[in-house]
Structures are given as C-alpha cells and as structure tokens.
C-alpha cells in the first residue's frame, strides 16, 4: 500500500477502532481519534518531502484495478494542486479533533467516527485520479458532514441546514454524474477504451457542443460546492447551524473541493468551453465577491457573517481560476489555502466564544478585548488575515488573483478590488462590536481567556497565516508547474476562442510603446 492509500485508509481504520471501543470512555475514544489524525497528518508530511518540486504532473501515483468490467480503477496521486489541499485536510482534521475536545460532550463515539470518515473523504477527493473514484469520495463525504450538522448542530434549525446542505450538494453532483457517464462513453466510443482514468480523459478532444453541456454539468456541481452566487444559500445555514468543528472543516476544506474541481476537471477537460464560459463564471464570481461582502456587512450573527464572507472570498478564488493565467490561478490556489486557515480560524474563534456564551449574536457581545486579551490578539490577527492585510496570508493570494484578473480583463480587478474595501468594513465593524467598547453585558464580565489548548490551536493557524504571508515561495514553487500544465491544456485548444484575453494583452500595447508587451503574455 502506497503512502497516499495509507493516508486514505488510516482514518478509516481509526474509525473502526473507535466503533469497537467502549462508549463509556469518551476520553479514550477522543484519544484514539486524535492519535489517528495526528498520525495521518505526520504521514501526510511525507507527501511534502517526497513530492518533487518543479514537476507539474502527477506523482506518487498508485493504481489498482477495481471494477475492471467498467474500466474503473483505484487510481490516486497528487500534483501541485492537490498536494497542499491534502495537507490542509490532514492538518485541519487534527485541529478539528482538538477543537472538539470540550465542545462535543454527547455521542462522542459517533462524532469521532464521523470526523474520521470525513477525513478519509476529504483526502480521497483530492487524490482521486479516476472519475468514478472521485465521485464516490465526493458523495461519501456528504454523509459524515450531514450527520455532523444534523446531530451536533445548534438546536433549532440544524436539521433544516443539514438537509439543505445535503440536497444542494447532491443536486449538483447528480448532474455531474450524468456528465461523467456521457464523457465515459464518448471516450469509449472514440478510442475504444472504456475507462474512468482522468489521464486518458485529458487527451480526449470533445466537440464543442458537448463540452458546453458537460462543462455546465460539472460546473454546477462545483459552483454549488464553492459556493458561487446564486447557489450559495445553503452555506450560511450550514455554517451557522453546524458545530464549530463542522464549520471549520466545511469552510477550510469542503468549499475548496468546488474550486479544486474547476481546476482539476473543468479546465483541462473542457478547454474550449472554459474559454467560452469565462465571462459567465467571472461575472458570477464578481457578483459573489460584492454580494457576499455586502450581505456579510449587515449580518447580526457572527457565524453568518463569516459564512457570507466566505462567499466573497471564494469568489476571488473562482475569479483567479478563470483569469486563465498563471498569476490568477496561482493566486486562486493560494487563496484556497489561505481561506482555509483564515476562515477556519475564524470559525474556531467564534466557536470558542460560543462555547463560553452560547450565543453567536454580535449584539450579545462587546468589550471582550478587556476580559480576553489573548483571545483578542488572535482574533485580530485572523480578522486582518481575512481582510487581506499585506504580510499576512490573504494578501498574497488576493493580490495574485487581482493581478491575474487585471491581465485578463482590467474591469474584473476594478470590481473585485471593491471587495477588499468592503471586507475591511464588515470584518472590522464586527470586530469592533464584539471586541471593543465597554463590557456592558454582565454575562461577558466573567468570561475566561483562552486556555492552553485553545491558544495552541490558534497558534497553529496563526503560524500559517503569517508564514504564507511572509514566505509563500515553497508553496508557489510546487503549485505553479501543475497549474502551468492545466493552463497549457486550456491554451492549446481554447486559445483561438479567447477574445477577452487577447484584447487584454493588446490594450496597453496599443496605448504605449509596444516592445514590452508582446513577451509578457502569460507563459
């Protein structure tokens, strides 16, 4: 069994162990779960060390026949795009385990099993190189997440949120399933080989009319997951009602699957259609950026606010992807990771005060800085990272996205940039209302500052928040070659259909002396 397979199945083994363990000893079960996820994380570091930087293709590929009759194989591997997403998943799983330590008190056994299943699903989605396998992981993940929201969520609307989450996601993915099948048979009929192998599919040249439909079907599934405007309404509900850990993983990892899907499938498989749909996708993501930010501004519930801010931030990611140049796409990838840390940390933070006060309403807080100074510091750093302060992680990604967008179509960057202003407005306003002012509520007066465990959790997040901001090079170096490969596929076949990009490159050239511009078209 290769390293990647080990990563996939280790959490599963842990889950089985917990299932057999005694219900009366939640401490033991927590211990097993934490040990498993820590072990998985440590193993996943092996991916990083064994990954050859500078190579764009898939590495550490494992292949095993699964359903040979249908050309289904168990095929996993990583490239620069998935490497860090896997690491993000394993790291955040550890964080999630630790974060749930005192939060979850009932049905610990089931909870830990769900978390470990979720971890398997998350890793699986990012490493699967067989469309069938991918689809299986993609759907499998719904179950534990659904249970997490539905069982351990906030009383009240948790069931509504859980079912909404499930149905929304399922809606998109079912159409994707049809698209996968259509593609599978097209591949079979044209090449004679019936296979779900992604690598083989990459070589397939689909007629444009077909690409359009397939792109839409795949795209819908991913757009719902991202979530892009106007398919986002499940997110605020899911985030708000989910337990802290659920929100953290949902924001940090699950949302990334949508954007990952775009990069992994939509772009390379349907290059011509991609180019065709750039205006639509970029347009929606721009609307999402502004819309999410505006709506976030007027929220009265911290978690909902963060959820809408996710809509805005993920808009940046999609925009970067559909800028269709190295800068934008790299920015999008970084932004995916950044959003994982920033928003993940934000949900941890909200969870910590929720655990103390059992409310998420902004109006119920105020002046927490006075009673919880350490917490205030972490919250501030995380909020600033979410705003995209230079020197912290958010900025690098957002700047690259804007740069990419500007090169593709200056207007995009102009509109998207407004999102940065609004981000400062909603985040700081919320921060002010929660943390500043006098402690005017009696309940807030006695709040305890962070304990060691909580501080350690946030420290991990803040470490990466700063590290990504100051020295993102190791990440970019590994991500970029893979993105270039994707881009090459799009460029080679989609290039003739690219009016937008062409004008973007020519416009400044026409305005001024030409010698500089001819060379700088994204390479």
């Amino acid at each position: 069994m290769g390293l990647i397979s080990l990563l996939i199945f280790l959490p599963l083994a842990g889950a089985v162990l917990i299932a057999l363990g005694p219900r009366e000893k939640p401490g033991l079960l927590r211990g097993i779960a934490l040990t498993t996820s820590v072990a998985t994380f440590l193993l996943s570091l092996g991916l990083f060390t064994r990954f050859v930087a500078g190579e764009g293709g898939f590495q550490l590929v494992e292949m095993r026949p699964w359903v040979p009759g249908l050309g289904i194989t168990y095929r996993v591997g990583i490239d620069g795009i998935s490497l860090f997403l896997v690491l993000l998943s394993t790291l955040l799983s550890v964080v999630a385990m630790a974060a749930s330590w005192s939060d979850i008190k009932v049905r610990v056994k089931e909870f830990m099993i769900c978390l470990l299943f979720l971890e398997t699903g998350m890793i699986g989605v990012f490493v699967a190189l067989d469309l069938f396998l991918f689809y299986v992981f993609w759907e499998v993940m719904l179950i534990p997440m659904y249970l997490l929201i539905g069982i351990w969520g906030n009383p009240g609307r948790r069931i509504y949120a859980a079912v909404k989450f499930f149905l929304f996601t399922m809606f998109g993915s079912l159409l994707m399933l049809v698209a996968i099948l259509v593609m599978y048979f097209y591949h079979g009929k044209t090449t004679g080989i019936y296979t779900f192998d992604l690598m083989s599919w990459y070589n397939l040249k689909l007629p444009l009319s077909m690409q359009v439909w397939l792109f839409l079907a795949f795209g819908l599934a991913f757009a719902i997951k991202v979530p892009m405007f106007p398919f986002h309404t499940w997110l605020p509900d899911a985030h708000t009602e989910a337990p802290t850990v659920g929100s953290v993983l949902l924001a940090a990892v699950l949302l990334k699957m949508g954007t990952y899907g775009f990069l992994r499938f939509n772009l390379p498989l349907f290059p011509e259609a991609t180019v065709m749909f750039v205006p639509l996708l970029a347009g929606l993501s721009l609307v999402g950026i502004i819309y999410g930010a505006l709506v976030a501004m007027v929220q009265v519930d911290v978690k909902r606010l963060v959820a809408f801010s996710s809509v805005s931030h993920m808009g940046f990611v999609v925009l970067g992807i559909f800028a269709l140049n190295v800068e934008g796409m790299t920015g999008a990838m970084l932004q995916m990771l950044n959003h994982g840390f920033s928003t993940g940390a934000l949900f941890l933070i909200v969870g910590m005060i929720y655990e103390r006060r059992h409310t998420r309403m902004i109006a119920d807080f105020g002046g927490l800085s006075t009673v919880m100074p350490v917490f205030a510091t972490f919250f501030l750093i995380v909020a600033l990272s979410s705003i995209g302060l230079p020197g912290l992680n958010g900025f690098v990604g957002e700047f690259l996205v804007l740069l990419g967008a500007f090169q593709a179509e200056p207007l995009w960057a102009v509109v998207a940039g407004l999102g940065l202003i609004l981000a400062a407005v909603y985040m700081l306003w919320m921060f002010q209302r929660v943390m500043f002012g006098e402690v005017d509520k009696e309940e807030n007066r006695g709040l305890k500052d962070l304990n060691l465990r909580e501080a350690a959790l946030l420290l991990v997040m803040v470490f990466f928040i700063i590290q990504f901001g100051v020295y993102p090079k190791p990440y970019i170096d590994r991500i970029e070659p893979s993105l270039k490969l994707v881009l090459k596929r799009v460029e080679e076949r989609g290039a003739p259909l690219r009016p937008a990009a062409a004008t973007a490159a020519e416009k400044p050239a026409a305005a001024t002396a030409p010698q500089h511009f001819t060379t700088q078209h994204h390479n």
Partner: protein
Amino acid sequence: MIDKIWLVVLFPLLGVVINGLAGIKLPRKVIGAIGSLAILGSFITACLIFVEVAGHGSAERVSEVVLFTWIGCGSLQVNAGFLVDPLSLVMMLTVSGVSFIIHVYSTGYMAEDEGFRRYFTYLNLFVFFMLILVSANSFLLMFVGWEGVGLCSYLLIGFWYQRQAPADAGKKAFVVNRVGDYGFLLAMLLIFVTFNTLDFNKVFAAAPQVLEKGGLAVTLMTLLLFVGACGKSAQIPLYVWLPDAMEGPTPVSALIHAATMVTAGVYMVARCATLYSMAPISMEVVAIIGCLTALFAASIGLLQNDIKRVLAYSTISQLGYMFLACGVGVFTAGIFHLVTHAFFKALLFLGAGSVMHGMSGELDMRKMGGLKTKMPWTYGTFLIGTLALAGIFPFAGFFSKDEILWAALQKSPALWLGGAVGAFMTAFYMFRAVFMTFHGESRIESHVHVHESPGSMILPLCVLAVLSVAGGWIGLPLIAGGNQLKEFLQPLFSVAGHAAPAEQAAHEVGLEITMMLVSLGIALSVIGLAWFMYIKKPLLLEKLSARFSSLYRLVYNKYFVDEAYDALIIQPIKNSSLWLWRLFDEKVIDGAVHGTAALVLGASGALR
C-alpha cells in the same frame, strides 16, 4: 554597512516580538526602554548608512539590497528587498529619529496607562511598517508597509477601545485608507501589466521608453497612485478620517498622524517622480488637490476649539502644501517640507499632549487660557513650533513653505494665491490656539490641577524645538551650496529629465527675497490680528460670528462633509445590503429553493 540595511527594520520588529510576547512579565520601565532602544537602534543604523552613502559620489548613492524572493509566480517576481538611496535615507532618518523622540516622550506620557505594553508593541510595529514603507524596493513591498502602517494607525487610534469614539475613529481610518489603497492596488496592477515588474528601479528605468509622455497609461497610473496618497495623506476627498484619528493617544497623533505616516503619500508621489513628471495632467491634479486641501483644511482649523483638532486640520493643510510642491514639480521642496513639518508638527502635538497631561485630559481650548506661567517649558516649545508652522524667519517652516510658494508662483499665480491665503490662515489659527491656550485669563475649571510635565516629556519637546528652529537650515535656498538637502535629493528627481523650476529660481533671487518678505509680513500681521481678536477684543469674535452666522456654522461644522458622506454613501450601501439580504437572499434565492420544495411537496400531498 549598506547591506546591513535590514537591521533598520529588524530592531523595531525585535521590539514588537519581545514586548509583545515576553513583555507581559516585564516591568514598565523595561518595556519602555526596549521600545525606545529598538528605535534608537534603527536610527543609529540609518545614520551610519547615511554617512556611508553621503560619502559616495552622487551617481553611486543608489543601491538595492535583496533578502529573499517573496512572491515569485509567473512573470511576477517580487523580492523582499530594500532600496537605499538619498530619498529613502532621508525618510528613514526622519522616521526613526522622530519616532525615537516620541517613544521617549511616550514613556512619560503613557506611564499610568493600563495598556502600556500594548502601546509600545503597537508603536514599534508601526515604526517597523513605516520603515518598510520608506525603504521598500518595489511597489508591492511598499504596499506592505503602506497597509501595515494603516493597521497600526487603526490599532493606535482605537487604543482606548473601551470608548465608542476611538473605536469608531480607528475603523473609519482603516476603511477610508482602504479606499485609497484600492487606488494604489489598481495602480500597481496597471504598472505590472505595463512594465511586467513592480521594482522601483526597473519601472523607473523603463518608464521613458515604455510610456508615452502624457499618455493615458501613465496618467491613469499616477492618478490611481494619487488616490492612494489621498487616502494615506488625508487629502480631499479622503481626509475625513484624520480629524477623528485624534481620538488616539497624543504621541500617536504626533508620530503617525502628523510626522510620519500621513506623509507617506507625499513620499510615494516623490518616489514616483519619474512617472509623475511624464504625466502633466496628473501633476496638475496633484497640485490643485493639494492647494485646495491646504485652503479647505486651514479654513476649518480657524474655528475648531479642540486643540488637537486644530492641529489635525493644520496637518491636513500642511500635507496639502507638500502635494502642491510635488504637483508643481519641486519634489525636493515637498520632501523638505515633509521633514521640517515632521519636526514642528510633532513638537506641536507633543506640546498639546503636554498641555493635556497637565490639564488632566482637557482638550477644549475654551477651558484653558493663561497656561503660560504654569507650564513654561511647554509654552516655550509650543511657541517655537507655532512660529515654525506659521513660517516665520528663521524657523524651519519658513524655508520649506517659502520654497513651495515660490515654485507655485512659477507655475501659476492661482496656486500661489491659494497657498498664500492658506499660509495666512495657518498663522491665524495657530496663534489663535496659542493665545487661547497660554495667554489671556485662565478659564480652567476649578477641579483641574495644572502642572508642568515630567522631564521625559519635556526633554523631547526641547529636542524637537531645536530641530524646528535649525531643521530648515539644511535647505537654505539662498546661500550657495547651502541647500544640501536639495543637492542630496535632486539627482533622483532629475531622472525624469526635465529641469526643476527651483533651479530657474536661482536666477531671480531678488524676486524671491521680495516674496519672502511679503509672506513674512503677512504672517506677522496675521499674528497681530489674532492677538487683537483673542486677547484684546474677544467680543469682536462673537459679533463676527453672529454677522456671518450661516458661514460660521458651515465652517464650524466642517462643511458637513462627514454628514454628507454618511447620507450619500454609507447609508445607501447599508440599506441596499439589508435589502439584498432580507429580500434577495432570503426571499428570491431561498424563496426559489423553498418554492421548488413546496411545489414538490405539494404534488406529494396531491398524490398521497
């Protein structure tokens, strides 16, 4: 030594780390000492480098020190590196020098505050970012400092976050700055697609070949950069945050909102002199905005009763002068004024802080008066600062301001007139402040026990006072070879390849001297007027205000700009957001979802 430039930014960072992490266990004195020494370290390093650079011939004074690749992606390669040249050195010296003084002052001023450690951590962090801003070798890195100082400004304005006003003011400052930063950001994007790099040296070197003089690209770039500068340096229409920023501790106002951060915009415009020189339209815009701001802010300053607000509007106004200088092409003069302004405005703020300290936090000048005797040191230094700001010979402000006005006259009489009227008002409101605070009868409320400030506060005042007097002499315009600052800086600005108007000025010494005397005369007469109105005949003022009551109200309420912004921008956005959420999100989108579900469920009911 030049390659040790990173030490300049490292020291404050160390201060942040030590005070921020370990400081919780340290006594206040140690914290204060660490904070101050960190800045002193930067200052000394900067001095050493300055000496070394100054020793080089003017051609070899520019060098770049690269630490590591920060972002390298596609065609974007941005290094974390420093640009060491006369301009950045002057800025580094000013920033670290004034910062050090203010740090020392703060150890006294903030001695009793609960957040002492937090204060010094923030202050060191600010200096760190400010030094990055002025020493960065690329637009992007400069932007790091740019937003970083904005952050620190946010934190320090809202330092006393328990109260609503500082917290609001901090947020306002950050958000308004963000609007400016948006311009900066777009400018960077445009620069990148044009030059394929964001390095200052590469951009400026390529500019003459790549850009067409007066072309759309360069005009757009420079205008967008100027939007950023407007935000940071509080120019119309983005000046609104600065008066509110006075909610922060006074040393912060002195350091950030007078001496250093707010001048970042000027520095940036000067840094991009090459680009601006190629965009005459932008230059005009800069000059006009600068001139208008100078006038506008000064007029508001005339009627403010809060001593710090007077100084705040004065700062806005003086920043306007600096932009005016840049706009008319005398970047050196802009920087010169920046430096002198840093001295005397810091002095004034610290003086105001000293008054506050002695008055138990009172800021309303109507409740002061006659402090001259009770706080002699403060009075003396404050007066020196005032004279310098009013532009009285031989104080620092005289030289720098005069150079600007002279250059403006060369460009257009209207600009000169605006500047001169502004100078007139400046002298008036400053002496109004002096008279209301230190002269006349005491209007102090009985419970306030007035006392002179401790030595740690007075000493910095004295040092700054000396600088306010002598600071101008480095730029003496008339003595041959006397304008050392210009000599030091000019090579940078002549890259753009056009003769600075200041050079022509040398040929008209006579006229210049005349103009100097005129402005001096005006200033002196205005001082007299202020004395007449506030000391001799205080009743006259009431009559005047009753006479021009609507005008008085308009100016007294700062032209209702804040109210207008609130009604025209903030409320509409807020309301439309609410509308989007409550109606669009919940009714339309979710309504469609729920509608579909209801439809299916309804069908289910029908089918049973």
